[in-house]
């Protein structure tokens, strides 16, 4: 089924991705991430000594500070902070640096839809840049469900508002392993099919949600290829410079 999108994309097509790391001088790690006109900056400071109150001192603590483009932070930003914190906690190895705090500061540069997924991707790249030990990367994607039931990926702000429902989905990146294929499967599904984070808005049928999952998983493979290429490219660049 062909769907008309304002910018002429097909329904599964993502906007152009761009990512650069190590762009801030003082931060221990930083990254900027843009998909289309949505752009997010992330900086990582840490691991710093001590954990915050009410946190487990036997593990590393992760703190997320969300800075909107303009104005004060409100309830939506608090929710984003909580989701980012929980998502990043699940991909980092927290037992390596016990009793430390790592701060991640997310600065929204421009919001044109799929803001939280962009922020998750940016924060993840900044963590890699800072050398924080991680189990795997996280790839985040936004799927929109239209009233007539079709699903589009990576919507702009306008599309997000027009659609009846949308889901932010976060998956682990696809792994390349020397182990034979199938040995990394959990319950018959590859590990990258597991959902790290899911946030939905608006009403959809249960089948629509599973369709979103399917589309999101397909797109996350492309995204994780992009991440892998980007990380390999920049690491060879910096080794040449050094």
């Amino acid at each position, binding site marked *: 089924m062909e769907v008309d999108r304002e910018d002429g994309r097909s329904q599964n097509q993502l906007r152009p991705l761009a990512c650069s790391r190590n762009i801030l001088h003082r931060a221990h790690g930083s990254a900027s991430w843009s998909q289309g006109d949505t752009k997010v900056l992330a900086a990582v400071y840490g691991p710093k000594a001590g954990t915050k109150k009410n946190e487990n001192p036997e593990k590393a603590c992760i703190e997320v500070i969300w800075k909107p483009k303009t104005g004060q932070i409100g309830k939506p930003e608090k929710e984003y902070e909580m989701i980012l914190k*929980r*998502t990043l906690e699940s991909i980092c190895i927290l037992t390596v640096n016990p009793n430390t705090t790592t701060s991640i500061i997310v600065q929204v540069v421009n919001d044109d839809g799929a803001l939280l997924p962009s922020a998750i991707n940016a924060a993840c790249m900044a963590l890699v840049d800072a050398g924080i030990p991680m189990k795997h990367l996280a790839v985040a994607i936004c799927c929109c469900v239209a009233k007539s039931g079709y699903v589009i990926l990576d919507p702009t702000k306008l599309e997000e508002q027009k659609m009846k429902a949308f889901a932010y989905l976060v998956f682990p990146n696809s792994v390349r392993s020397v182990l034979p294929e199938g040995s990394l499967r959990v319950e018959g599904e590859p590990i990258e099919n597991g959902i790290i*984070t899911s*946030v939905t808005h608006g009403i959809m*049928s249960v089948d629509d949600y599973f369709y979103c*999952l399917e589309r999101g998983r397909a797109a996350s493979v492309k995204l994780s290829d992009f991440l892998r290429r980007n990380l390999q490219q920049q690491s060879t660049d910096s080794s040449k410079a050094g």
Partner: protein
Amino acid sequence: MCFFPLFRSKENRLTMGLPNASGDLSTEVEVDAFRRLFPLRFYEKHLLESIRPDARPLGRARETTIALALAKIGSTTMLAAIKMEVMTPSLETPDEGCIAIDFHMPPICSPIVRPGRPAEGAPVVAKQLSDTILSSGMINLKELSLVSGKAAWMAYLDIYCLDADGALFDTALLSAVAAFSHLEIPVVSLNDDGKIVLSEEQGLSDREPVNKEKRKINLSSVPFSLTCVLHKNYILADPTAEEESIMDTIVTVVLDSSSQLVSLHKPGGTVLAYTSAIQDCIALTRQRVKELQKILEEGISGMEVD
């Protein structure tokens, strides 16, 4: 290390304590010590037997009661209140009212909330609640209109958490639904200056009330939710605060009365949710929606008899 009784209720402890009455006290101390020292292992021992420390099977929710707008799930207690105010509707939506939702966690509800400092989780639950209630379409905002373009109701829904023992969102949503289901809108009329006044206060019978037929809000497609905790392959429905803190993967599913998905919320957590786990969570929620619908109906009909 199998030295503790599986059931923690008092009767069971008595019967199980009898055969080895000599070591009764020491066993109990050891169980409590084990629970505190190795909380995860303590839970895993129970999960192997498909039972939870409070004697519930994994998929069962705690006892749920609704009285007016006081909802209790297990010992988690929430009180909801709705205040109505007349406001001028915005230009974009001249014939719609508005709902503002807030969630409060005072220090009384949990040891981790300190006075003076707002609880971390409270704004997040508030945001989730307003997203769920507004996007579910439970309330038609047009019903809150009084005079198109001139006056509409602004409903302030405040939910107070009195006891936070896990599944905060579920209990808050239940108390919000209960509050809306017996909300009574006061009769108002327009006075000579074009202002909205309470009809009873004025005592004027000649003025025609503007909302004669709109004393109750019709609730269509009521949302109900169930929070589950994932741990390894186990799914624990309706977790207590202890379970939520030990096993950190929490999935909240909200379904409306026609089984449409209103929200599927999983903020991170160590366990990855595969398709089968998501399907199981949705199936558990479907069952729970039926239970909650019945409890809510009983709660409302109980009110009408009084």
